[in-house]
């Protein structure tokens, strides 16, 4: 190891771990377990979706046609790209290119904002049409049983996903700050990596939401 590399910041070893390596492994395992819980959290809504789609296929198809496919597609592209930039930022951090890592993270956050913006525009449109969930449903164009249920699911799923986007953004902002301080390097980048994992999960969920909601 070059002396230069040795001066790069390392993680702090807690007293109860035998080695940094082990500690990183523990953190990564912990994160994956956390992601598993997130997956099961969404699974509840996906179950609801499957059941009601099974019961009301017509209503679901009809309602889905009233969502903006363009907005959905653009958002998919935005989110995929943001996932890509996060992956890049980790790559740059671990190859000691701090500037590039920071830029990539900033880009990710911008893309996330873009995603939320587009979602907000969609939501506004739904509000205007009264295509709202549950008892607020008063959408003139679709009046078949099950339509309200579609919008309930639509709002719950995108809403919960949106919350995750916001949470992910906050994490990324914090990571951006720390990366800028030079906390992550080829010798230690676990924190950044875990944040990235979370963001990828947000992307994963959307990859399924997109066809299920917009493309029936």
């Amino acid at each position: 190891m070059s002396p230069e590399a040795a001066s790069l910041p390392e993680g702090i070893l807690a007293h109860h771990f035998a080695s940094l390596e082990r500690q990183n492994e523990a953190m990564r395992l912990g994160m994956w377990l956390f992601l598993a819980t997130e997956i099961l959290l969404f699974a509840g809504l996906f179950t609801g979706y499957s059941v009601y789609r099974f019961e009301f296929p017509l209503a679901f198809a009809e309602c889905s046609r009233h969502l903006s496919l363009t907005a959905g597609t653009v958002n998919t592209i935005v989110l995929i790209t943001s996932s890509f930039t996060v992956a890049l930022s980790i790559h740059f951090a671990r190859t000691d290119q701090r500037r590039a890592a920071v830029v990539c993270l900033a880009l990710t956050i911008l893309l996330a904002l873009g995603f939320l913006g587009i979602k907000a525009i969609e939501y506004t449109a739904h509000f205007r049409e009264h295509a709202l969930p549950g008892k607020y449903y008063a959408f003139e164009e679709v009046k078949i049983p099950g339509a309200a249920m579609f919008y309930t699911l639509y709002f719950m799923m995108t809403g919960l996903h949106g919350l995750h986007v916001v949470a992910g953004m906050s994490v990324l902002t914090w990571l951006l700050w720390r990366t800028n301080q030079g906390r992550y390097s080829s010798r230690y980048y676990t924190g950044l990596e875990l944040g990235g994992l979370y963001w990828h999960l947000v992307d994963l969920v959307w990859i399924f939401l997109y066809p299920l909601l917009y493309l029936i």
Partner: protein
Amino acid sequence: MNEVLRRLLFLPDQASTFARDVDRLHYFVIITTFIMSTAVGLTAIFFFVRYRRRSETQTTPHIEPALWMEALFVGTPLIFFTLWFFLGFREFVRQQTPPSDSMDVYVMGKKWMWKFAYPDGPNSINVLRVPAGRNVRLLMTSRDVIHSFYVPEFRIKQDVLPGRYTQTWFNATMPGRYQILCAEYCGAGHSIMRGEVIVLKPQEYENWLAFQHRGLVATQDAQPTALDFAPPLGNMVDQGRRIAAEQGCLKCHTTDGTRHIGPTWLDLYLRRERLNDGSIVVADEAYLTESMMDPALKVVEGFQPVMPSFQGKLAGPEVAALVEYIKSLQSDAVRIGPSEGPAYAPIRGR
């Protein structure tokens, strides 16, 4: 044998064709359970007596079970449990499949009463009359929350769901009266949501049916409702309910949303009522009180001013109780909504 075990286990009478078969499996299962738990307990005690600690420094050999032993541990329960399953499931499928010659009765559960309707026949509340020896299918739904139709003597139970139908069936063997209990928790009146199945001899049943066809709808089988059995519970709402019944308000007002001589009380509180002079009032406490004291002052559009004044007939607290009662009559979120009621389905193969 059957009788002894039945009494020993406190099982109720066997009044349907299922009961005996279910009970037989019940005996088998419970006896196995007893034997196994006692055996395990006794073995533990035996080992304790036999292998007491003799000295504080005693060491013991390392023992691992042989493979055949573990196989036994897995195999025995597995065989028993699978056997239970097959015996039980055969019976279960039978209970879930009404025979195609069953007569239908429609059941509606509602907080906290049971309503029964016969095709082209009478309706009744809380009393279900069926002929003995005949297959009866119940097609059931609920008006508000989940209830469960339970007749212990028949060994049948089926949840009753809002917005959709469920079914069950039975064939009662012994004429008599059997209690219907609600077995799914449904609120304050859950434990008094009781009804009765009256199993009649076939001929008596025919007579009853014929008699019912003669009368007016309003006089058909007017049964007291569960609420009449409900003891005073002590709070304002319950007092109000009692007073409303005593004072005869319910002769003209309904609490379930239907229109009668007077407007329904369901969702009345804070409703915007249009009066016959075209103006609109909000039915707040003041208006409700006023309507009892001076009904003719503000008459609701579409109704006749026939309500008597209760000035002087109701004490202050009574009025307050009535108002509280009316306020409590808010329909649940569970209403007949955009999705229409479920469909009727004939029994498969009929």
